[in-house]
């Protein structure tokens, strides 16, 4: 397949190269076969387990009652649709098995899983009705803190500093957000939350860049520190002064015209300022990281600080800035928990979302857009689980709750496409 190298290399080396290529293609074939079989298995599940049990029609609500443009609910015959979906899966599996989609395998596998999930939904709602739009809107809401947390991690790690203190930054932002929000209003609270994240990140930067402390340890310390500090202050201050724990909640702002579009409108254009902030941040960080000089420098420091240094880039300064920006995003994300949803703080209320953000970052391949889609997967399975619990399906909710973590493990283990961190991630740089 591959053309032999033209330059005069020793024979042995040539042989090794040739062997390797062969091995690789054999592995590729094997991978194609396995993914093909997986798709076949999914098709079989839909065909033989889901379809026979599905009677009646499945109805998905596509509009909220108060929307100006009403879409009629989508009604499909359950069994018929499942036959069709099974055939689609079977076709994908067959072509994958015999021909292979090569580089597109991951995408096709993703589509296959999406088809399978939709089959589950059709099957679960057979003879019933549920509001699909409500689930989609809830997906965005639940993905927001995860996507922002992931973004916080990306900014830090692209510059070569591991940030596992995202959870602490979220919690810190949530706390100061609610206190300042209660005293001086939501906008001040949002600002305070952002600053808090930045301050915590400064701690990370000082210890990681100047003192070269193990970055995993600093992250853990930040998480414990913030959990302890906020719990202590809650018990000592907020419980005794409930007026400090009653912040205004940002209301959804509907964007004219766009907000009236069915489905897309309520999902993307009728949200709170924090959700809009997330979209803007995802877009702008993507642009800044991959299209500007600052981004190139940040990434080069994260990949090869020595080379960057030799070209005159101030490694320490670049890392400081990236980490502090990352922390500010984390603090901003923290504000979602209080100012964006419930207006009050409770101990440990972030509930591990910072760590899920970390997972989303890895699944998204240290790329803001990828991380956003990963966060959507987490948010989606979360909302799907809720819906399934309401309409009482035989699938255990715990299984669906577990699904995104399963996906994370599969991706981290390198089964579907490789997740590659920045080369100098987590390595302190010492100038020689």
């Amino acid at each position, binding site marked *: 397949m591959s053309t032999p190298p033209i330059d005069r290399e020793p024979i042995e080396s040539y042989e090794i190269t040739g062997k390797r290529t062969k091995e690789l293609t054999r592995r590729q074939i094997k991978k194609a076969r396995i993914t093909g079989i997986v798709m076949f298995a999914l098709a079989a599940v839909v065909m033989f387990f889901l379809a026979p049990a599905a009677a009646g029609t499945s109805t998905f609500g596509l509009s909220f009652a108060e929307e100006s443009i009403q879409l009629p609910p989508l009604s499909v015959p359950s069994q018929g649709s499942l036959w069709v979906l099974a055939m689609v899966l079977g076709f994908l599996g067959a072509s994958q098995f015999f021909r292979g989609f090569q580089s597109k395998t991951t995408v096709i596998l993703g589509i296959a899983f999406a088809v399978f999930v939709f089959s589950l939904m059709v099957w679960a709602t057979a003879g019933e009705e549920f*509001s699909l739009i409500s689930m989609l809107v809830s997906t965005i809401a639940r993905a927001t803190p995860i996507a922002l947390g992931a973004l916080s991690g990306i900014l830090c790690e692209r510059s070569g500093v591991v940030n596992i203190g995202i959870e602490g930054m979220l919690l810190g932002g949530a706390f100061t957000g609610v206190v300042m929000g209660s005293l001086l209003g939501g906008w001040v609270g949002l600002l305070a939350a952002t600053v808090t994240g930045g301050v915590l990140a400064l701690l990370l930067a000082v210890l990681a860049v100047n003192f070269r402390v193990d970055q995993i340890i600093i992250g853990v310390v930040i998480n414990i520190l913030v959990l302890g500090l906020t719990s202590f202050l809650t018990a000592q201050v907020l419980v005794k002064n409930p007026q400090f724990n009653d912040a205004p909640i940002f209301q959804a702002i509907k964007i004219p015209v766009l907000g009236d579009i069915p489905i897309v409108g309520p999902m993307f254009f009728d949200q709170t300022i924090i959700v809009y902030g997330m979209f803007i941040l995802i877009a702008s960080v993507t642009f800044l990281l991959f299209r500007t000089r600052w981004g190139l420098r940040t990434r080069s420091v994260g990949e090869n600080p020595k080379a960057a240094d030799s070209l005159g880039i101030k490694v320490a300064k670049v890392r400081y800035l990236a980490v502090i920006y990352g922390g500010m995003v984390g603090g901003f994300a923290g504000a979602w928990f209080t100012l964006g949803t419930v207006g009050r703080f409770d101990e440990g209320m972030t509930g591990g979302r910072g760590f899920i953000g970390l997972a989303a970052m890895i699944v998204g391949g240290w790329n803001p857009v990828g991380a956003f889609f990963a966060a959507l997967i987490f948010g989606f399975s979360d909302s799907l689980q809720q819906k399934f619990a309401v309409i*009482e399906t035989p699938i255990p909710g715990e299984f669906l709750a577990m699904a995104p973590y399963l996906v994370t493990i599969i991706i981290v283990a390198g089964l579907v496409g490789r997740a590659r961190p920045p080369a100098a991630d987590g390595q302190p740089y010492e100038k020689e």
Partner: protein
Amino acid sequence: MKTNFKIVAAVLAVSALGLAGCSSASTTTEPSAAAPAPASASAEAPAVASEEPVAPALKACEVTDVGGVDDKGFNQKAYKGVTDATAQLGVEGAVLESQAETDYVPNISSFVDQGCGIIVTVGFLLGDATKEAANANPTIPFTIVDYAYAEGDITANNVLGQVFNTDEAAYLAGYLAAGMSKTGKIGTFGGINIPPVTIFMDGFYRGAMAYNADNGAKVEVLGWDPAKQKGLFTENFESLDDGRSFAQNLVDEGADIVMPVAGPVGLGSAALAKELGPDKLLIIGVDSDQFESDTANQSVYLTSVLKNMDVTTFNAIASVVDGTFAGGVTVGTLANGGVGLAPFHDLDASVPQALKDQIETLKAGISDGSVDVKK
């Protein structure tokens, strides 16, 4: 330079742990250091002016579940039993909040080491930790909220289990909600699928079904199926945003009255209800009268299903004070005031008199045993 950063890291780590310990006090105490200090109040024990100068006051110590004493419900209410006792009986009170399930054992053993006169553990999830501690310390009286041990589980019989027939009160709430719903759908969700949570949901569901049977209505209950014992759960008692999104989910499916049984998570539902307004969503509080405790969101509470663990906890402490403490199980019922339905407060006028009368009749029926809430 190298040693420098190690020192910095060490100092930070230690101070972080110290701070974490300050609030949860979950650091293990060395037995030798802590044993002879029964009277010294721990750093955050509410200072209680003891009236008796001679005898060292009895120390009533409470270990909370992860919700914390300010959850406006479950833990807070049990803690009220302790503070009532400090005010009325002159005992000393102390509380340790568990930040995670791993804190249960260290928190209890820390109180054992401090020489507490009675240890109150709040919550079903502390059942195993309490059993272990009680068997290891047969002379210390324990009382646990929401747990009844089987015969022989506790060798020295030094644990008083407090259980509540909350389904009796939740039955009334379900009946009321079914009568008040305009959409014909009401909803509920829980924290974790454990008996003290699901007993609320069982009662709520059956109460609504009783309303249907009495009035020929067809009100649906979303989020719980008592036959299969399956339903909607947040799987935690901390994430308030879950409370909001779960309630939103139920509203989107048509429910206009929701009963969250998830401790502070329900406050998230209340925040949503306040935003949507009482026409779209009303909340039924649990454990304490949340109209009183969640003053920021008073307008959203139709009523609350009361579980008066403050009374049972107070009684347990009082029995230790007067020397009559006995292990076993105490059951709070509608008849003995252990559970109940809170007043409707501001919404009183909107509840039809006929419905109120039906609920009163039902209440009498449940109390005298003629109405069975288990079916």
